[in-house]
Structures are given as C-alpha cells and as structure tokens.
C-alpha cells in the first residue's frame, strides 16, 4: 500500500492531464495516483490508458468535481490523501516532506503550504498564496476566508471516517467545507515552502461572472446555515459568531469589489456592473461602502478612460 494517494479529478482537459500526473509522480516516492475521469467527451480515456502506474477510473455519468473526488477517495487506500486539479502542478519532492510532517504530529489532521500562481504553461509568475500561514487551531481563521489552497493540502484518511466525505452540494467550495470541518476537530500544520503551482483562472466570458457570484452565494449560505452551527461555533457564543460573520462579510465584499474593479480596469464595463450589483445585493452595507472609497473611484476613472480609448479606436 502506498503512503499517500493523489486524487486527480479531470474533465475534458486531456492535453493538460499528463503534465499534472507527471508532477504528481515526481512529488513523492511512494504515491498512488488516482485519476477520476468525470465522463469526459474528448480523448481523456485514451490519454489515461496510455499513462502507466496510475489507477484510472472513468465515471459513466458527469457528476461534478466534488462527487468525482469522492469516487476517487473510495477507490484509494492510502492513509494520507491529497487532491490535485488537472491543470495544477505539484512541486518535486513536496509531498514526501508534508507527509513526514504529518507523521511526526499525530494530533494534526492536515498540513498545507504555499501555492505559486502560474500561467497556462505552468510557469510560476512570482505571486503566491496565502500571505500568512496560521498554524494550530485555525478554525476561526477558516470561517473568515479560505486561506488554504486546495492543491497544497495533505490530510489523513482518518479525518474522513470521523467527519464524513466531501459535501457534494457545496459544489465549487467543497474543499473549503472539508477544511472547516477538519480544523474544528484537529490542529493544522502549515509550511511556508511552496508545494504546488496553481493555474490562475483567467476570466474570459460573462459565464465566469455568474459562476463567481454563485460561489459567493454558496459560501454565504454554508457559512450561515452550516459552519456557524458546528458544535464549536455554537459553544463559542453569539458574540464570537457575530464577529466572525462580520469578518467573513468584509472579506467577501472586498473580493467582490476587487473583482468588479479589475474588470472595470480591463474595460469590461457591463461585467463589472454585474459583479458590483451582485455584491451589493449580497452585502449591501460593506460593498457600497467600499465602492465609495477613494481607491475604487480612482480605478473607476482609469477604467472609464480605457473604455473610451477603446471606443475611439
């Protein structure tokens, strides 16, 4: 039995998949690689067939990332688990080091590290996430925002048998939901070392906007209806819960304003207005406040200039 299972859920990205699998192989000397093909319609089955030393599973019906990862979990059998997306990369040797850390700390449920942002070719562009690495009990930090990049996490299989599998209804943020649940019962280790390359998603169409808005809505719902009802949150009292709710709203609205502003700068006025409107609907007070701050106004001006210039040409 391998020490760590790397679960790669993939759909219609057969050109990127071999790169992710190769990086996973280089990341550990003793890993089981499980590729779950979420009913791809391209050449993914042939590509998987050509890859050696992997456990390849093909779903007959399209289920989504969360459910595909759950299937990968059931097919895997190692005591440590990590998820890798088909467009992300694991850095060489990074997994073994993280597994060693976990083995030396039996009280810890998971370990995370730093993720480098990369372009489409997988080259790091110099930025990384997160900026700070809180350790130990990070339950309340995780209730503010998702500071844990999914491809950098290694967690114990035992966490799942105590807490249950991924929540499929939390489609898109099921990883965040799992980190919250793990952090509620276990302590968490962090390494500042970069362990993965995260492909930065480039917003290309209006569809992305609605997806982003959906994720924000889902996070807000989970935060209110599930995370704040976890036994630890209940035990901490109403004041603490209110405080963390405010921090959560502040962070989410900041992100929404930033998303709107960056679109505006790029001259995509309509999309930006959509994001701003969605944000105002979700967090009326904090979003409208941020929109009115000076920096935002400045970026508004710049955006309008770009737009007019584009119009004139």
């Amino acid at each position, binding site marked *: 039995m391998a020490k760590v299972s790397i679960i790669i859920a993939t759909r219609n990205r057969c050109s990127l998949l071999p790169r992710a699998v190769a990086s996973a192989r280089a990341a550990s000397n003793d890993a089981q690689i499980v590729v779950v093909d979420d009913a791809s319609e391209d050449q993914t089955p042939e590509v998987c067939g050509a890859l050696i030393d992997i456990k390849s*599973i*093909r*779903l*007959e*019906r399209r*289920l989504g990332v969360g*459910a*595909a990862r*759950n*299937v990968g*979990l*059931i*097919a895997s*059998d190692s005591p440590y688990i990590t998820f890798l997306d088909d467009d992300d990369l694991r850095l060489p040797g990074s997994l073994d080091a993280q597994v060693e850390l976990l083995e030396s700390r039996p009280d810890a449920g998971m370990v995370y590290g730093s993720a480098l942002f990369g372009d489409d070719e997988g080259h790091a562009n110099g930025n990384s996430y997160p900026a700070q690495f809180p350790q130990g009990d990070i339950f309340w930090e995780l209730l503010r925002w998702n500071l844990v990049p999914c491809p950098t996490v290694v967690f114990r*299989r035992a966490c*799942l*048998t*105590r*807490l*249950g*599998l991924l*929540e*499929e*209804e939390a489609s898109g943020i099921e990883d965040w939901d799992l980190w919250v649940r793990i952090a509620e*019962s276990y302590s968490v280790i962090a390494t500042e070392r970069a362990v993965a390359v995260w492909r930065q998603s480039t917003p290309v169409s209006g569809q992305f906007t609605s997806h982003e808005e959906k994720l924000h809505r889902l996070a807000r719902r989970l935060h209110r209806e599930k995370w704040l009802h*976890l*036994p630890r949150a209940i035990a901490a009292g109403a004041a603490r819960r209110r405080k963390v709710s405010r921090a959560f709203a502040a962070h989410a609205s900041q992100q929404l304003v930033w998303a709107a502003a960056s679109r505006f700068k790029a001259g995509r006025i309509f999309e930006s207005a959509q994001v701003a409107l969605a944000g105002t609907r979700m967090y009326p007070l904090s979003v409208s406040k941020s929109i009115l701050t000076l920096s935002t106004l400045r970026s508004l001006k710049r955006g309008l200039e770009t737009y007019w210039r584009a119009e004139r040409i």
Partner: protein
Amino acid sequence: MSKISLIIPTFNRPHLLPRAVESARHAGSDVEVIVVDDASSDNTASVCAALRNIKYLRLDHNQGVAGARNVGLLESSGDFIAFLDDDDLRLPGSLDHQVSLLAAHPEAGFVAGGVLLADQNCVPTGEVAVPRGQSGDLFWKVLELDLHLIPGAIVVRKECFLEIGIFNRRLAGIDDWDMWTRIAEVRPVLVDPTPVCIYRVASPGSGQGSSAFGRHMHTAVKHQTRLFSLPRAQAASSTQRRAVRQRTRRRVADTLSWRAAEELPHGAFRFAASNFLIALRLNPFWAARPTHFRVLWRTLRQLIARHKDGGIHSRPVR
C-alpha cells in the same frame, strides 16, 4: 469466494445492533462487517467495543444514513458491497448465494432478493415481499418506483460506485432508490426471489425512519424529475417520460391512500391524514376518486362502531 463488505449504519439502537451483526456473520463465508456509528448519543460505542471482528467507525456529527453508508464505502475492501439496517437481519448463507449470482453475470450491477416481512420484534409474519420483475434492464421499472427495493436485500458490485458515484446525502430516506436507479441506468439488474433478509416493517409509532413514509414518497416524486436528466431518460420520447410520471404519481397516490386506510383503524389519525393529504397533493383526481372515499368511509364507520362497543382491538382493513 470473493470478499464481501457488509455496511451497517447505526444510530441509537445498541439493543438491536448485536443481533444484526451476528446475522451478518453467518450470511457469508468471507464477510467484512463494517459498523458506522452515526454519532449515536447512547452506549452504542461500548456495545460495539464488545463485538469482535468488526470494523467500527464513529462519526463526530450525525450525517444521516446516506453519509454513514458513504463512510462505510470508504473503508470497505471487498469487491461486493451489501447494506444492512441495524434493525434488520440477514439470513444464513444469503450473501454467498447472491454473490454467486453476481459472479455468474459479470455485467449485472446488483442483485435484489426477496424479503421476509417481520413485526416489531423481528419475528417473521409469514409475508414475503419479492421484487416483481425479471432480471435484465430494469431502469424504467426502478425509475417508476414499480420495483420495491429494500437495501438489506441487495448486493452491489463495488465497481458500480466507481462508475456513477456515491449516495446523495441530501435525499434523506430515498438516497438508496436514487442509487439503484442510477445503477440500473448503466447496468442490467438481477432479480432473485430467494428470501435473503428479515425486514422489520415500520409502523407510525415505531419511531423508525420509515415512519416518515409519506414525506419520503413526496421527495421521491419530486426527485424523479431530476432523474429524468439521466441520458437514457433524455433519449426517450417526452411522451414516454410523461407516461412514467403519470404512472408514478398514480402508484404513489394509491400506496399512500392505502397506507392511510390501513393505519386508520390502529388509531394513527395524524399519520393517515398526512399520508392522504400528500396523496391528494400529488394526484388530486386519482387520490380523490370514489373508491378511495368509500374505503375511507367504511374504515371510519367501523372505527366508530368499535368505539361504541368499547373494543379497541385492531383489525387490518383492506
């Protein structure tokens, strides 16, 4: 003989659980018994500690039956998976028998067996419920709720979960039906009339999950529209889908009205009323047809007559 993993989700039933585990041990030659304790608040943990040769998993927070079954799947190592509720029993040798059937038909996804119905003390009443149908492609029959499938009487190939995913935690009470439908869509199903388990039939007062019968049926009818998005249902004509929908509504309305009439003489007024109201909502014209009112009226009259006599003994009314 291949290894079989039998998953028993349990919640606050330490007095029934050892019996279920014991029956599971005699049901096959190489059985891995996995007990998933869905965060019981009583002494289930100590009862399980006394049971030998089981894999005991305990969840921190209650996940519901579907969530517990999924965790059992995660820890299972057999090629075949069977489920058993903590209050039901497996018959001796039944797992080996069903696995041999599956081994003979490598393309089949799961095998459904017969069920001995039992009272609250798990004593068989003599009634046997056998899935009505022939082995083969049973997708439409399962989708129509025409095939009564009880999880305890089914053995599934583990590969099936790797093809169509795991139980949906949101569908409390009907997660198993959703699973069998999705499997039946991609694989043939084996039906075998041999009884394989003893099923404790729920009654309104028994506090079993299945006493929420009406609500589950309602959820099932609502969820069916989502199952229509499965490729095979999409490929069928809209006329066929409409016909399936109509037959399902009728069947469910009939079942609920019948259950209402059956429970009424036992004094379960609230249960009967809620079931009949759901039937009315699902299919007003079918549930409110004269026959049903005649049955209800007759039942009520008997009840009143009995009340006048001072007798309270129940008698099943059909």
